[in-house]
């Protein structure tokens, strides 16, 4: 049997194949193959193997490798075979190396010389074999070695060789356009080859060249049209026919090329109308390949400058496709319809029923294609039906890849065309419920934002109604057994923010539910964190309303559990909860204003509220603050030597130390710093500077701005993800310590700062309001069917979004809000928030912003426009690493781009003075302070409930 075609195979190979074929299990098959490998390994290295045997061994190796086993021991033998004189052995060698090796394999270097020689061979079969290998094995570096030979072969007398030479050249172009860019004119020349096969082969590279640069090939339109005409008129030899179609493969390639050349070019397109029309008429639609040509004609017609007659023909063909019984043709019909509706949207209407049929078809491929079409057809009039269908389908499938895609499409359409906000929220709920873990977290954020912001209309009543209905629906949904984490986060946030807002549900209802959530999803720290924060809010609102707070027992126990949690984040939240409950109504009102999630947080960058304090300090003999720029040189040096902690720290602190009255103190500060540098920069020793600076603020935290720190924590954590770098928990513990030893002492100054910030915030709020109005008018306008208005709406939203950037965290933050803001809300936020900035940002690029919203990757740059744009991803990465030691690292998640610059700059500018003050100012408190800081930074937290905590950190 094996010799049937002359390709001789030995009995051994047949036996191998047979035994593999009869293997009853994968294990048995593996055993047989491993046996075979052993045999081959032994035999192949024997001396004096006859060529015929060797050839067979190699074929067996190829076969074994196809079955998934490693045959690399035989590669070298395959390479040797290519050197053989006998064509057959050589061919086998080439076949084996093309299957075994990739173009970067070390052995290629041993083949290049042979290929060079073979390309010059007199025997065209040898040349063809070598060209096959060239296409597969030559990489950018080796192209020059064979290029001259391949170029010569373009004029080879055999058409088979010319064809392959063109393909080889095409391959070179794909791999390294620059290496053959001077030779592309050869493709044009070969287009005129007198062999149609060669001409047909030339179309492949030309198609690619034209796709990259249409304009340089416009002059060829006439040639292509005339070639197509001749082909269609059966001027080519019968051998090219396929099911009575004249050279369909060439026709299709030509139609593809014409589609590119005629796109948006009326003049070029006019040359094509006749021939395309002819093909439409002549094409035999009974054969598969005939339909392929027809389909390609439709693609061409929908791409070139529209011609009514051709569009009509195309529409006819489409309806024939759609009415066909063949699923393949229906599929092509749907695809073609998707192309044509871009030009003539009305054509879809006549095929409504056919489309609906395809949607109900059992064929998954067809269904998906139809959804793709619907996606293209969506308008605000039909969005409800389409998205509904999509979600139904999404629920029914298990393929995560497609589920993700369709979920994101649902979200996109809903955001673009939502007829009402009620519907939007319901739709989002369904998407989250069924594909929650596949949906981008940003979608969840935008949903929360939407609920928080309302809809831009002034109708507060409608907004609160919407919120009530959201709360109600979430309370209901919470009854479902297994909900995705992302969705739970949204639910917790909304319940916390608005659960008790309308008075329909009592605080104990909501808190009970939240505790249930935290208990039911006890493995999910993020959800637990959201739930805890929501609890804080509920209680804060209650306190602010001057009502008595009685904690539910389950809530109490939850809090106790979290106080001892291994997660410092949860622990901190629990402490915050504890702290909030202990505050009086006035304080709670300040830190946790009700329904203020959309308010902006004003950041007092200059920390002017500290002026008095600084003044006082300086009067008492403290060193004035030295700006970073003056200080940086020194710091740099110390940082470069970061490895050598001692030296580094003494460098960094020298200027401080000399002034101090007490030398003893001097040694302590270094220690604190040592500690911090030790812990923090471990993952990234290259960038110790940030970490150094950023650790500074934590030192004075107890003294002056403990609250600041504390607030910060609360704020960002809320939005953080559970997966922090180990170092982060150090900072957590630090701040948490701060909470413990609560220092609410300087309430006065912080409150005043708050006032300030509130005042300056007002104008921005108005601006965002206006934007919202604009958005609403755009969105609610009569021209709903167009995509543009929707985008406008989105853009406006996005602009307010950057304002939200700041308030989202704020809303979520509990204890902290304002003071936090003043200490370290990123300055860029502030900049953005300012009216002028907002408007410029708005003009920036609404579309980009829109994309950003939906984009999984980097929202940062798109969303916050200019300022963040300058932040390179590297810095960001760096930030995430180094900022681990800082309290606001959570920021990184949500505000990444925004917070970035602030973090890198701020500590230097804001925190330093405090350090200097506190150190030189009040020796005694300072002493204890430093001890405390040191202790905390060393990770020995006296109040910590679980010392184990730090094992992971330091280990």
């Amino acid at each position: 049997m094996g010799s049937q075609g002359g390709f001789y195979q030995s009995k051994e190979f047949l036996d191998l194949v047979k035994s593999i074929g009869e293997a009853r299990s994968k294990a048995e098959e593996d055993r047989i193959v491993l046996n075979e490998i052993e045999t081959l390994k032994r035999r192949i290295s024997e001396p004096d193997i006859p060529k015929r045997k060797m050839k067979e061994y190699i074929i067996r190796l190829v076969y074994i490798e196809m079955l998934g086993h490693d045959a690399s021991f035989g590669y070298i033998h395959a390479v040797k075979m290519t050197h053989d004189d006998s064509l057959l052995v050589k061919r086998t060698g080439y076949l084996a190396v093309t299957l075994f090796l990739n173009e970067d394999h070390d052995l290629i270097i041993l083949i290049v010389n042979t290929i060079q020689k073979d390309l010059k061979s007199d025997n065209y079969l040898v040349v063809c074999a070598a060209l096959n290998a060239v296409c597969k094995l030559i990489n950018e570096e080796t192209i020059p070695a064979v290029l001259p030979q391949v170029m010569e072969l373009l004029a080879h007398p055999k058409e088979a060789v010319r064809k392959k030479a063109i393909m080889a050249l095409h391959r070179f172009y794909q791999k390294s356009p620059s290496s053959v860019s001077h030779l592309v004119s050869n493709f044009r020349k070969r287009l005129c080859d007198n062999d149609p096969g060669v001409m047909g082969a030339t179309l492949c590279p030309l198609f690619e060249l034209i796709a990259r640069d249409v304009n340089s090939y416009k002059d060829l339109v006439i040639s292509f049209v005339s070639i197509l005409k001749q082909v269609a008129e059966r001027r080519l030899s019968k051998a090219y026919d396929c099911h009575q179609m004249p050279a369909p493969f060439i026709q299709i390639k030509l139609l593809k090329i014409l589609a590119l050349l005629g796109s948006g070019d009326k003049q070029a397109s006019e040359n094509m109308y006749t021939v395309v029309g002819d093909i439409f008429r002549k094409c035999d639609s009974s054969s598969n390949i005939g339909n392929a040509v027809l389909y390609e004609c439709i693609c061409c017609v929908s791409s070139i400058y529209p011609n009514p007659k051709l569009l009509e023909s195309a529409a006819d063909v489409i309806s024939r496709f759609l009415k066909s019984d063949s699923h393949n043709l229906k599929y092509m019909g749907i695809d073609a319809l998707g192309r044509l509706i871009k030009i003539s949207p009305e054509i879809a209407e006549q095929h409504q029923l056919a489309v609906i049929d395809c949607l109900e078809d059992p064929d998954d491929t067809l269904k998906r294609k139809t959804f793709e079409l619907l996606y293209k057809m969506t308008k605000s009039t039909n969005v409800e039906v389409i998205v509904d269908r999509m979600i139904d389908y999404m629920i029914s499938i298990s393929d995560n890849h497609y589920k993700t895609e369709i979920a994101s499409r649902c979200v996109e359409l809903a955001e673009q065309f939502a007829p009402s906000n009620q519907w939007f929220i319901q739709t989002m709920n369904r998407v989250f419920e069924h594909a929650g873990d596949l949906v981008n977290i940003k979608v969840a954020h935008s949903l929360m934002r939407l609920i928080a912001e309302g809809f831009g209309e002034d109708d507060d009543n409608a907004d609160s109604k919407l919120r009530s209905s959201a709360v109600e629906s979430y309370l209901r949904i919470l009854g479902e057994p297994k909900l995705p984490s992302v969705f739970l986060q949204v639910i917790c946030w909304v319940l916390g923010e608005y659960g008790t807002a309308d008075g329909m549900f009592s605080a104990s209802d909501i808190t009970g539910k939240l505790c249930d959530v935290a208990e039911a999803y006890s493995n999910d720290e993020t959800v637990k964190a959201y739930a805890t924060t929501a609890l804080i809010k509920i209680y804060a609102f209650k306190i602010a309303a001057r009502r008595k707070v009685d904690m539910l027992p389950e809530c109490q126990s939850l809090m106790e559990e979290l106080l001892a949690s291994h997660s410092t984040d949860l622990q901190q939240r629990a402490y915050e909860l504890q702290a909030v409950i202990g505050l009086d109504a006035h304080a709670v009102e300040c830190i946790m204003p009700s329904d203020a999630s959309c308010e902006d947080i004003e950041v007092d960058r200059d920390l002017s509220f500290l002026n008095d304090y600084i003044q006082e300090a300086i009067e008492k003999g403290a060193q004035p603050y030295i700006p970073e720029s003056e200080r940086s040189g020194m710091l740099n040096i110390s940082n470069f030597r970061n490895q050598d902690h001692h030296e580094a720290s003494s460098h960094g602190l020298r200027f401080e130390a000399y002034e101090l009255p007490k030398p003893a103190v001097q040694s302590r500060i270094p220690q604190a710093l040592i500690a911090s540098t030790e812990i923090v920069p471990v993952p990234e020793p290259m960038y110790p500077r940030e970490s150094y600076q950023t650790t500074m603020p934590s030192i004075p935290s107890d003294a002056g701005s403990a609250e600041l720190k504390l607030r910060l924590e609360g704020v960002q954590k809320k939005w953080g993800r559970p997966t922090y770098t180990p170092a982060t928990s150090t900072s957590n513990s630090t701040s948490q310590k701060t909470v413990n030893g609560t220092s609410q002492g300087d309430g006065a100054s912080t409150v005043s700062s708050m006032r300030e910030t509130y005042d300056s915030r007002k104008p921005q709020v108005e601006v965002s309001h206006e934007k919202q109005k604009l958005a609403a008018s755009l969105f609610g306008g009569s021209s709903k069917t167009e995509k543009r208005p929707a985008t406008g709406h989105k853009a406006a939203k996005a602009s307010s979004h950057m304002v939200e950037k700041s308030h989202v965290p704020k809303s979520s933050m509990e204890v902290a809000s304002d003071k936090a803001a003043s200490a370290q809300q990123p300055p860029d936020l502030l900049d953005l928030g300012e009216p002028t900035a907002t408007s410029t940002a708005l003009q920036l690029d609404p579309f980009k912003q829109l994309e950003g919203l939906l984009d999984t990757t980097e929202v940062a740059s798109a969303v916050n426009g200019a300022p963040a744009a300058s932040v390179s991803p590297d810095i960001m990465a760096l930030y995430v690493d180094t900022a681990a030691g800082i309290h606001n690292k959570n920021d990184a998640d949500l505000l990444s781009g925004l917070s970035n610059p602030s973090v890198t700059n701020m500590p230097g500018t804001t925190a330093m003075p405090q350090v200097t003050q506190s150190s030189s100012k009040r020796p005694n408190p300072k002493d204890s302070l430093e001890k405390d800081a040191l202790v905390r930074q060393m990770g020995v937290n006296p109040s910590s409930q679980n010392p184990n905590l730090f094992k992971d950190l330091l280990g």
Partner: protein
Amino acid sequence: MIKAVMVMNTQGKPRLAKFFDFLPVEKQQELIRRVFGVLCSRPENVSNFIEAESIFGPDSRLVYNHFATLYFVVVFDSSENELVMLDLIQLLVQQTLERCFKNVCELDIVFNYSKIHTILDEIILGGQVLETRSTEIMRAVEEISKLEAATNAISFIPKSASSWLSR
């Protein structure tokens, strides 16, 4: 561009695999397995097309055809059209293999492994369809077959291996 041609039987055993961009063996195996997983879950009488982005990455589609105990699969990107690829499978199976083997069956493909590769090399080169005339393909294959038959007769006198090792 065509990314891969695969032949596998209805039990999922690969019978032929040709990837036009190099992939490591393990990756090839994984892809074959996943393709088979999709194929065997397809009901009868549906289209021959599958969106293969979840398997082969963005911009990849797959056309398959089922002949007796074999699946013939072609993976390609958006620069090709599905019906054409379907026709290419027909060309390969019905107009070429059928002529080579008369009533081609799974065993023919298994036993003439290298010949099938030769045929494919004639039809597709570097991921582009090069030759669609079955007569031409047949002629090229015949030529090699003839040579092979001739060499087989000759090579019964084994050349000394030392001569080729020294090369």
